[in-house]
């Protein structure tokens, strides 16, 4: 099964200069666990901020999320995968990189995101179709 059959194309992003509080607000409001971090100026590399980053790097340390910038805790560079590859390729990449989501890219542009849950859902569909190979 190809990645683009199961990726999420709606990608929520946040400016790198925003506060972690803004990120929390957006994630809770949209019920998502990560945001793409957009850096401005010459720095064109994107980053990613996850609920895990926020809890472990800010909240557990009792830092004020309003005074911590997203840029300071975002992970960079993001891990990308080609949309033409398979769900299995994505699972291997996620396992190797120890990450819970990969961004799906086409000609250097981010076109979607694939999470661990998407990989599991895709595996169930393959089972139901009868072409699941463990």
């Amino acid at each position, binding site marked *: 099964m190809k990645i683009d*059959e199961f990726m999420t*194309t*709606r990608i929520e992003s946040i400016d790198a200069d925003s506060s972690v509080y803004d990120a929390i607000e957006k994630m809770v409001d949209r019920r998502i666990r990560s945001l793409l971090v957009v850096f401005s100026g010459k720095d064109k590399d994107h980053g990613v901020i996850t609920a895990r980053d926020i809890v472990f790097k800010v909240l557990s340390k009792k830092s004020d999320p309003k005074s911590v910038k997203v840029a300071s805790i975002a992970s960079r560079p993001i891990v990308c995968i080609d949309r033409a590859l398979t769900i299995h390729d994505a699972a291997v990449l996620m396992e190797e990189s120890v990450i819970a989501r990969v961004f799906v890219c086409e000609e250097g542009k981010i076109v979607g995101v694939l999470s661990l849950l998407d990989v599991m*859902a895709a595996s*169930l*569909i393959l*089972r*139901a*179709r*009868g072409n699941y190979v463990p």
Partner: protein
Amino acid sequence: MFLKKILSYGKQEDQVIENVKKHLQLLCLAFDSFCSGIKKNDSSMIREVIDLEREGDSVRREIISTIYAGAFLPYLRPDLCRFVETLDRVFDSLEDAALNYSDVVLPEQIREECVRVASMNTNMGEMLALSFDAMVNGEDLREKALAIRIYEKKIDDIKFSILKEIRTIPVDNFWQGRTLAEFVSDLTTISDMIEDATDYLQIINISMR
């Protein structure tokens, strides 16, 4: 297996099963034609959906009359009929989507998402056909029903992103906006109906135990 469990197993039951398979096959063809049609923006493929719906309608009538002519035990008939009627509603929505698509220029902002929904609808149709085969063979439908629920949830997510986007698209007049909104509505409610059809299959399967 399914048929062998029915005391009144006979020619009429065989005929119903074969016709339901035919109905599902027509539905899968219609999904495929619709999906390729909007991918390639090919109006002749979109028009095929209308012909297939008509063919599906006559198969449905035949199924219902065979059931009420005495096929299957009475307690099974209502759920079988509801299953077939739900397939007909899926066909109707697909036909409406095809008709609305012919009257509207699909904005680029939502084209890719609409194609994804059409493609998932096609996959759901195939999964429904597999579920029916599995039921006839007396197999468990759990995995297939779960796959259909996953697709339905995925389409629901895409629907919200299309609806969010569509509100920002300028329209020239009321009818253009209405046709576009109806196209999106028809396209995205098909998955709910397929989920309902799977539920009826599960009910039939359970009542056979």
